């Protein structure tokens, strides 16, 4: 059993309205040092697989098919035994 912690981010070229709004709020709270905020998603996925290469292949496939939209997003992940 493996656990993949997947992070999906907006591509750097894609404007992030949520990040901009949070940056504004941080500034108004006095965190003047904040120069940028980007918001993404974290997903934890548990996978039944016998070896890590098999689990990695499945994670890549599910990210490409569903979990990230390649038009606006990128993904990366960490895999650990669970």
């Amino acid at each position, binding site marked *: 059993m493996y656990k993949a912690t997947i992070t999906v981010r907006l591509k750097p070229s*894609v404007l992030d*309205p*949520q990040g901009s709004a949070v940056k504004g709020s941080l500034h108004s709270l006095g965190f003047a040092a904040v120069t940028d905020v980007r918001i993404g998603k974290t997903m934890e996925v548990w996978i039944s697989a016998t070896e890590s290469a098999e689990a990695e292949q499945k994670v890549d496939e599910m990210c490409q098919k*569903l979990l990230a939209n390649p*038009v606006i997003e990128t993904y990366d992940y960490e895999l650990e035994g669970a």
Partner: protein
Amino acid sequence: MRFAVLVFPGSNCDIDCEKAIQKVLGEPIDFVWHTQRNLDDYDAIIVPGGFSYGDYLRAGALARFSPVMEGVVKAATEGKLVLGICNGFQILQEAGLLPGAMRMNDHLKFRCDIQPLTVVNNSLPFTQDYQMNETIRLPIAHGQGNFYCDEATHYELTQKGQIVFRYQGDNPNGSVDDIAGVCNQAGNVLGLMPHPERAIVEWMGSQDGGKMFTSMLRYWEEKIGAA
């Protein structure tokens, strides 16, 4: 001309589409539940607005894997008319039938309004009853209508006449190049964020949506007539 309007868990403009087709065209229209694979009986497919699967993950991302989408892809490949409105547009993007993706509105608010639009391409089965560069008014109601595509895709859309509607005046969501609606290269799949089915009779504040449906019927009649 036989219409199908798809119904996903969370669709909420399906009945508006049915009423619009009945009122404007008087043609038969069936509700088709998302578990049905085969759409061979239909000449046109409407993917309606709403919040399919609660917009979980991304708007349209989960609906895109419903069995009925196999029928939609087949219909699109066969050259039948496929119209995606609002959430339907997002579903068709996720399915790869239309270019681009939607981001949250740049001001982060859900915007519900009547919006002036420019008809940028009136040579399509969906727009032939409009004038080129005509101003029309259609309702919008969305929180994620901020159309995005990269520069290369935008250039291609411009060159191939795939930009169909643009927002006039203030852009309500921050979309690239004020884009409100795009079609595929073949011109038989259209997606737009505004709601033509909600602009049918005078008391709705605009009747400008009707011509989209009369355009579709005229296209189909001419195609059948020519065959």
